[in-house]
């Protein structure tokens, strides 16, 4: 594994404490960075805070409700993030419908029974293998998305290129404009690909004046990339002078995408600690 790459992050969700702990303990803790959540809301919040590689979720997150399948609904959150994360549903109450919803409807990586149909104990080895396979798939997907097209904005808030285009151009979003946004964003991030791989926090603000701003912080390198995008005539000047002086990379797509030119500028912000990063995010 590349030294710059982090351990795959796994989020384990179960409303039952004993299962939550067991699902953690059964994984080799030195291979994964594991976090847990005890409810749908807590899981949803954690998924938005950080990019995970694998979500392991119990199907029924409210034990008193027999029909509860919040663990599967959680997969909608995951797919909105479009960051290649894989989900494994674990349950003691399987139904054919739920299996279909998870595997076909929501493209879960797998569906695992707490009590195997043929009897016997929980399949520990299968569980470990599944998490390992899911993590590998997520790592590959993420590499691919960073190489082929930039996925960090999506990680930020489940925003799509179209969503960003809407912020920049409000009503006038055509496929051409979306394509332009994609081009500009990918080109802006291209020089920072090695940095982008280790990025663990992304923050996005939708300002007045139709400017999108992304701040991506890399824990591995203690650096951040700041990107501002907007319509060409808007001022994209950096706000945070105390971190950096000059723009590193400027991209414009004038008039090629309908009436509006799209412009973007990116900066590498050196020596940024997470405290600095958090402070900036707080201030806005």
């Amino acid at each position, binding site marked *: 594994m590349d030294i710059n790459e982090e351990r795959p992050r796994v989020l384990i969700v179960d409303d039952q404490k004993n299962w939550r702990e067991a699902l953690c303990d059964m994984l080799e803790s030195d291979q994964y960075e594991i976090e847990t959540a005890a409810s749908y809301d807590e899981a949803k919040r954690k998924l938005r805070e950080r990019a995970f590689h694998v979500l392991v979720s119990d199907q029924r997150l409210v034990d008193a409700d027999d029909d509860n399948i919040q663990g599967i609904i959680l997969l909608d959150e995951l797919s909105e993030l479009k960051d290649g994360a894989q989900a494994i549903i674990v349950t003691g109450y399987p*139904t*054919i419908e739920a*299996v279909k919803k998870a*595997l*076909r409807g929501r493209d879960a990586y797998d*569906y695992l029974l707490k009590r195997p*149909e*043929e009897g016997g104990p929980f399949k520990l080895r299968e569980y470990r293998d599944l998490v390992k396979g899911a993590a590998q798939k997520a790592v590959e997907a993420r590499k691919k998305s960073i190489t082929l097209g930039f996925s960090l904005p999506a990680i930020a808030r489940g925003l799509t290129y179209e969503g960003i285009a809407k912020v920049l151009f409000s009503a006038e979003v055509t496929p051409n404009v979306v394509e332009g946004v994609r081009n500009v964003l990918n080109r802006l991030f291209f020089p920072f690909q090695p940095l982008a791989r280790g990025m663990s926090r992304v923050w996005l603000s939708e300002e007045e004046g139709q400017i999108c701003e992304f701040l991506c912080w890399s824990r591995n390198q203690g650096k951040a990339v700041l990107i501002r995008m907007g319509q060409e005539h808007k001022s994209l000047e950096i706000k945070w002078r105390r971190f950096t002086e000059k723009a590193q990379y400027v991209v414009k797509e004038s008039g090629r995408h309908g009436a509006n030119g799209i412009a973007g500028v990116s900066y590498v912000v050196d020596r940024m600690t997470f405290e600095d990063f958090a402070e900036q995010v707080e201030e806005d």
Partner: protein
Amino acid sequence: MVKRYVPRILLVDSEPNWSQEMEAALEEHGRYEVERVADMDTAFDFSYGDGFDLILINAALAFGDSVSKFEKLVHQYSDRVLVISDVRSITTAIKVFKMGADYADKPFEPRRVVELVTSRLQPEHGT
């Protein structure tokens, strides 16, 4: 007069009585053209050329000795393959859905299978 399109169904089951009854029910009530075979190898040979609108296959045959042929068949037909299991099995359902095919269990009565097939082939009119 425009000739009505008759969907073609491949029925794969080794139990001759049930299979004959199914064929009759599908052709009569559902107005489908049914091809009936009793094993996976023959089913695979029949499946070339994408000639069927739906393949109904018994789970015991699908996951029997010729499982690799079944996998190829699903690769070609994906969710137009409907695996029918005599017994409810979550494990089988998981396998089937992961492959991209569809699963239903215990539709013992031909009438129920006809309903199932009708809803699959005409989703806009189905239940």
